């Protein structure tokens, strides 16, 4: 029983370590900023989730008592990772992409982050735009 638990915990730790490394490597490797957003928010979050599950199993089998702190951290991370990714994407769009370059919104509405109506570009003087 304990050997099986050891194998499972070790496997989880190794897999989640690889996922964390892949996420951070993708952050410097991928070319486009919107692509770069994917690596840390998906792979790294999955890696941390694996570490948390391994920790839960470890304290359940070897610590004698089940611990539920990890569930709190998992829930918090899985709730906040999409929110912060969305915020970063929005800030990037706001600073670096001109209003005319984005895909047009559905008829009669505008994208949030760009000022509504008028024909003047919303982010005329953003300083570090990419082409």
């Amino acid at each position, binding site marked *: 029983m304990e050997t099986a638990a050891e194998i499972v915990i070790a496997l989880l730790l190794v897999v989640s370590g*690889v996922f964390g490394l892949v996420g951070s490597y993708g952050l410097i490797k991928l070319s486009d900023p919107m692509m770069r957003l994917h690596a840390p928010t998906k792979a790294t979050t999955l890696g*941390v989730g694996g570490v948390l599950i*391994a920790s839960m199993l470890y304290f359940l089998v070897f610590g004698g008592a089940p611990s539920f702190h990890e569930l709190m951290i998992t829930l918090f991370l899985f709730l906040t990772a999409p929110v912060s990714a969305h915020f970063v994407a929005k800030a990037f769009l706001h600073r670096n992409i001109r209003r005319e370059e984005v895909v047009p919104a559905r008829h009669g509405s505008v994208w949030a982050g760009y000022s509504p109506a008028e024909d003047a570009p919303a982010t005329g003087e953003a300083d570090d735009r990419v082409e």
Partner: protein
Amino acid sequence: MIAYALYFAFGCFGFALLLNLWQVARAELIADRVLALDTIVINVIALLILYGVARGTAVYFEASMLFAMVGFVSTVAFCKFMLRGDVIE
């Protein structure tokens, strides 16, 4: 066996942390730097939990919880500042 897996995971997340620091120093867009800082926080959470498992104590969960909260709030504050030029209007 768990000890070696722990060493491997420590190495992976430590190296990931170095890559993130490199990205913070090198990136040309501000959004990239903020994203790298957010990833640093997530990697530090993983390292803290791994350290707690290695030491066999549950004290470090509170620390990682605090890191998660502070990291989220700081990311949102950075992005809010980039979007609006102010954090709390």
